[in-house]
């Protein structure tokens, strides 16, 4: 009798069930998508913040003073200490290697560029553009294309193993050179593969593959400094403590958190004689921006959950309220309040389960769409979300129906049957 009542109710009143079903499906879909987006937004925005460039710099420990104004290096190039290029792939061996998005070595050399009358003292910077490296069993590519995303090249990026160079746009105007021209430089003839525009010091410089800069300087394997771009966790009280004064447990916790400070510490461990430091302009601000955006999405998600809960309970209340006559009939035939409520709750449960499953799939799809259209990457939905969402859906559906069911059950069957509701 009981299952038949429920079954027939769905068969004969598809319109009423449809509205409630749509509301539940939509509400669950929105809730699922918003929760998925809100839990993943931190990681996504963190990656977007990498477009500000490197947040860590590694330099030799006994580094000498840079005497540089507006991109022109005024110090003899062979001066000072260097890092070794062969140590760089070890950056991929640090504890937080998965958080390291990329790194670029830099080696500035002062050269004389141009020919005839038009000879200029300029800085040539050797670096990686998109260099293929190997650490252990993993192959990876890194270079300024990743760490300096705002660099724009008109023409082509040089190959890292070639003798081609990029010419800064203001320097190109001074030397009157364009893409494809040959640039005489300290007795060498280099091909200009593209014109570089960065809006900073590099506009007055030549950017070349690292190996070429090392040849010019006569120091194979030398690197002046390394820019590292890493995904970090916003700084808190623990982050700024000095690892030397920590107790072992605190130190482990500090070491195993991706703070910019602990990543710097780990970089110093793998690169001998180095000093790693955060670039404060980039590193100090990302935490604030990140927490603002995360906080905002959390509040918006709460609004979405509230709106979904209201939509579901409104639809359920309506669908129950419409059926007072039915309730009157059941009660007139001798059904108790408990029996009537059970039927309604069973219907609500069924609706919540069907709507919940449909809504979860729709929400997963929605989150996927948001991820791929806005962030060009996947927004992953944790499987653990499914039972949670389903439980919430059932709970909200019950809560939404409860008041209406109580009113319907209390209603005098005589009035209901006379149609005086």
């Amino acid at each position, binding site marked *: 009798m009981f299952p038949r009542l429920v079954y027939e109710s769905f068969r004969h009143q598809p319109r009423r069930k449809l509205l409630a079903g749509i*509301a539940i499906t*939509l509400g669950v879909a929105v809730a699922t998508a918003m929760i998925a987006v809100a839990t993943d937004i931190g990681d996504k925005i963190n990656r977007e913040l990498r477009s*500000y460039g490197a947040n860590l710099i590694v330099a030799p420990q006994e580094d000498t003073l840079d005497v540089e104004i507006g991109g022109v290096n005024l110090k003899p190039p062979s001066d000072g200490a260097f890092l070794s290029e062969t140590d760089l792939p070890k950056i991929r061996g640090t504890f937080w290697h998965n958080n390291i998005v990329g790194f670029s070595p830099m080696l500035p050399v002062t050269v004389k560029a141009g020919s005839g009358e038009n000879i200029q003292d300029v800085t040539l910077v050797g670096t990686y553009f998109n260099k293929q490296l190997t650490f252990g069993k993993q192959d990876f590519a890194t270079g300024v294309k990743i760490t300096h995303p705002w660099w724009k090249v008109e023409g082509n990026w040089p190959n890292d193993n070639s003798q081609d160079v990029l010419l800064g746009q203001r320097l190109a105007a001074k030397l009157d050179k364009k893409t494809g021209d040959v640039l005489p430089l300290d007795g060498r003839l280099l091909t200009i593969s593209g014109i570089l525009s960065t809006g900073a010091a590099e506009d007055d410089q030549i950017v070349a593959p690292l190996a070429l800069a090392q040849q010019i300087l006569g120091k194979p394997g030398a690197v002046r400094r390394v820019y590292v771009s890493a995904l970090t966790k916003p700084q808190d009280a623990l982050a700024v403590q000095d690892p030397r004064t920590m107790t072992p447990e605190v130190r482990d916790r500090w070491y195993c958190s991706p703070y910019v400070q602990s990543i710097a510490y780990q970089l110093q461990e793998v690169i001998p004689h180095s000093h790693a430091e955060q670039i404060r302009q980039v590193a100090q601000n990302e935490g*604030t921006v990140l927490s603002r955006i995360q906080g*905002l999405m959390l509040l918006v998600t709460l609004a979405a959950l509230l709106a979904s809960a209201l*939509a579901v309970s*409104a639809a359920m209340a309506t669908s129950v309220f419409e059926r007072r006559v039915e309730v009157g009939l059941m009660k007139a035939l001798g059904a108790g309040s408990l029996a009537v409520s059970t039927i309604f709750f069973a219907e609500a449960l069924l609706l919540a389960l069907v709507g919940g499953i449909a809504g979860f799939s729709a929400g997963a799809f929605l989150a996927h769409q*948001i991820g791929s259209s806005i962030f060009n990457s996947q927004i992953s939905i944790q499987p653990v979300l499914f039972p949670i969402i389903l439980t919430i859906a059932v709970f909200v559906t019950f809560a939404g129906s409860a008041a209406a069911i109580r009113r319907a059950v209390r209603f005098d069957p005589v009035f209901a049957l006379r149609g005086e509701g």
Partner: protein
Amino acid sequence: MSTIPSTNQGPFRTPQQIADRRALASHTSPSVSMFSRMLFRAAVLRRGRAASALLAMVVAAAVATAMMNLYVDVQAKLRTEFRNYGANVVIVAKDGQSLPTDALARIESTLGAKALAVPFAYAVARVAGGQSEGQSVVVVGTDFTRARQVNHWWKVSRWPDAQNQALIGMKAASVVSPNRQPFELTFQGKTIQLTPIGLLQTGAAEDSRVYLDQPDFQNWTGVAPTTVEVAASGTAADVAASIHDLGQALPSAEVRPIRQIMEGEANVLNKTRATLYASAALVILTSAIGVLATLMGWVFDRRRDFAIMKALGASERMVNGFFAAEAAALGVVGAILGFALGIGVAAWIGRVNFHAPVVPRFSVFPYVLVGSIIVALMAAIFPIAMLRRVQPAIILRGE
């Protein structure tokens, strides 16, 4: 309500009186006053149902208002946060020249209060005396008050506040003044004695430099500022306009955007805006569905009113108009209350998340109002269309 005949004034308590009143009203004055009276009485007599419909409307309008308000305001709020990254425009004197002496004043009169500008003058000096005798170091003259406002990330142990006090970078400190003792620098034969009052740490080129107050620097070297860094606020278009205006105001200088800052900001802001837009659309859609569900139930529930009106000879148009007007009235009241509530919610979110109040955007109101009325009308139309096919007699018999 002023047109109500005097005999009918006062509250009606019994159903009989109400029925009399209804009958009387429909016979004596089938006019606008009756129409509005029916609207009003319908809301009063079915307080519970009307209240729940209104509540749904208010909540939906509030959520929509809050989301739209945030969508507009959050971008401005985030831009303020992004200004912590420092200057986004740099003004450099053309080769070998220095900027005009009134450059800073011209920049400020061009951009007004919406921008902060910091001047920088550079010179290479040599250390006089001590173990690093003869070592070159870059000395920079600047305005410390301004530098402090723009470069929030500078970690400074103490800002200089008196004459001949210097702020020295971490790396420069170990060369010029390893024990924080006063030191001497020479530039073109002129020597200056400086007190290292504070240490500067940034992780970038600033660490290798010595910073002086501009008057001290200019007295000593005679070098005027060659670079001004400007933190211009506003949208990308505003900044582009600022760059153009600055170029006009300072024809002898080169004005260019700092791409690293501009593009990073644009990137993060666009993604956040798109996410917020998608979320706002979803939330507003969900609350509209909630309203639709509640209102449809409410209208459907009043099928007996509908049937009585038709049975008493009301035209189809009249009945439809009545239900539509009722829905529209609900939409208007809901939109007004919801708007007020939503502004409050947005202000609260602003305070909690950005520690700054969100300015109420009254420009959002027309959208909320029109949206609410449309949703309310849609919610009325479906049940009416369904009921139109049914004979009034069947409804009145309770079938």
